[in-house]
């Protein structure tokens, strides 16, 4: 009898987890108007208004292939990705990081007093990112301030992105910190999506133009997902604290972006949700 109960419980667990095997179950799909759409699934939930019928937009067919480890040379790529996005992978973390994405094309305006060779090198870096055709990540430049949503701003005032009482292990660490002499601030909606930003840089805090370029590349890359920089992989990674300003973009860094922008999530994605997605991706195989 006891074995029967255990078996019964096992089946309940298995079947209930299969019932959840849908992208939509991480959050209800959003309601939107689908006018004159005869293919809409009217057997599902819908909302009748005076003049319209609204249906939930279903994303159940979302392709989760990008969450399969076989797609990446590093077999721990998806583990690294989680650290880059969520920082803490343990239960009850001291700070809860959340997955954040740009939901609109990024249109950059660079202040004119940023040296021309820095601007050129930075544009070259962005074009290399764009060459990889990362889905849902669109970056361009504009000469018209009013058309931009990402301002790279040169400031006369020294800026630091940390509290004045923050203690570094050494002065060298402080000088190398990404947020010494530069900061960024992003406009975020209620769904953890970015739609505007300002990256400030104090040119006088840097000895050479290469140092400025290096910092811009790193900080801009970080602002694509509020990524957590650490000593990932080699020093040619933009996420390495001792980044060497490599001319090429490391596959690791590109893969982080590919994973991050394969899907623009309808709802907030917490670490537990992301792990569910990883499980469902395996089942989709």
């Amino acid at each position, binding site marked *: 009898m006891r074995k029967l109960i255990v078996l019964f419980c096992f089946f309940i667990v298995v079947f209930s987890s299969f019932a959840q095997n849908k992208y939509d179950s991480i*959050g*209800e799909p*959003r*309601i*939107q*108007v689908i006018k004159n759409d005869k293919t809409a699934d009217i057997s599902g*939930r*819908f*909302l*009748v*208004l*005076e*003049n*319209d019928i*609204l249906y939930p*937009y279903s994303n159940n067919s979302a392709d989760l292939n990008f969450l399969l480890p076989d797609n990446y040379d590093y077999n721990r790529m998806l583990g690294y990705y989680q650290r880059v996005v969520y920082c803490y992978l343990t239960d009850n973390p001291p700070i809860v990081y959340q997955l954040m994405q740009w*939901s*609109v094309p990024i249109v950059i305006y660079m202040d004119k007093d940023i040296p021309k060779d820095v601007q050129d090198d930075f544009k070259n870096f962005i074009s290399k990112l764009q060459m990889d055709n990362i889905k849902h990540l669109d970056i361009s430049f504009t000469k018209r*301030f*009013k*058309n*931009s*949503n990402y*301002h790279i701003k040169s400031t006369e005032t020294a800026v630091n992105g940390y509290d004045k009482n923050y203690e570094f292990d050494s002065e060298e660490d402080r000088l190398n910190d990404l947020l010494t002499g530069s900061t960024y*601030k992003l*406009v975020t*909606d*209620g*769904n953890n*999506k970015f*739609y*505007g*930003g*300002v990256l400030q840089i104090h040119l006088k805090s840097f000895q050479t133009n290469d140092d400025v370029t290096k910092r811009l590349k790193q900080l801009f890359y970080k602002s694509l997902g509020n990524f957590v920089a650490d000593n990932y992989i080699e020093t040619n990674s933009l996420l390495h604290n001792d980044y060497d300003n490599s001319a090429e973009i490391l596959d690791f860094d590109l893969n982080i972006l590919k994973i991050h922008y394969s899907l623009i999530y309808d*709802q*907030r994605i917490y670490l537990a949700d992301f792990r569910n997605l990883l499980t469902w991706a395996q089942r989709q195989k």
Partner: protein
Amino acid sequence: MKNLFTLFILFGFISISQAQEHTTESSRKIYTSLKAYKLTYKTPLTKQDTLNFVVREHDTLVLITPKMSRNGKSVPYEYKDKSFLKYYKKSAFRSSGVDSTDQRQVMRYWKDPIKIFFSESISRKTRKDIMTLAKEISSQVDSLQISEVKKVEESNYVVYLFDDYEYDSLMKNYTNSDYYLHWNTRNQIYRCGVKIDTKIFYNQALISNKLKELFVSTLGHFYAINDLGCESYFANCYSENKQLTSLDLEILKYHYSYGICKGTTLQDFEVQHEKAKSVLKEHNVLINFFHLD
């Protein structure tokens, strides 16, 4: 008996609004519960009044005579289906509907016309963007009038930037772009300040989009919810193509419809709907809500 009088149901909550049944009969009598009468009417009951008492479903009902009547307007119950109400309640009552504290959340609304003053630093283009949206709403939503004024002392709604004069002292410590609504004990909003940080909303397009989003929220202290497509002003996600969707308009129209009591808690709102729907189902008549001036 049912046809001899109309059943007057009044929910004697904080709200001063009342409900009564709506009928097409030319002669009708209006009753209210004794408890609600004491809360709302000042005229002492006479012996004659007590003779007119009727007992209904454990309630003693008082016949309202012309000498007791107060100025106000009677509006029939506006029926809404539960799927619409689900989204309306989440936004207007800022409720997730999952715990008992939600039941005490209240809805807030503007009773007087909204008169917007823009500080000098708000660009003409931004002012135009906001007023176009405001006029679109104002023209389609009854009981909600919105206009622009040129003098701050004539306004009850001020839009300004972080480096401007501090028009609302309660916002002086704000570090993010946001709004502050002032409301009275009847949950009627009577003043609003909206303040934008131009360090981050650095150009006209970003300012306009943020202001439009905040503006719609201030029309009822609405909460942006995660159920709606991003083009909706009631959605918690950004879109470059925000527009007043049919659902947005329906939410606003309903918020300013007097076919339900205003300024109530979620709990009272639920009870009123339950009663009104039950009377509609059982007697095929609409309860009227009487709104005192």
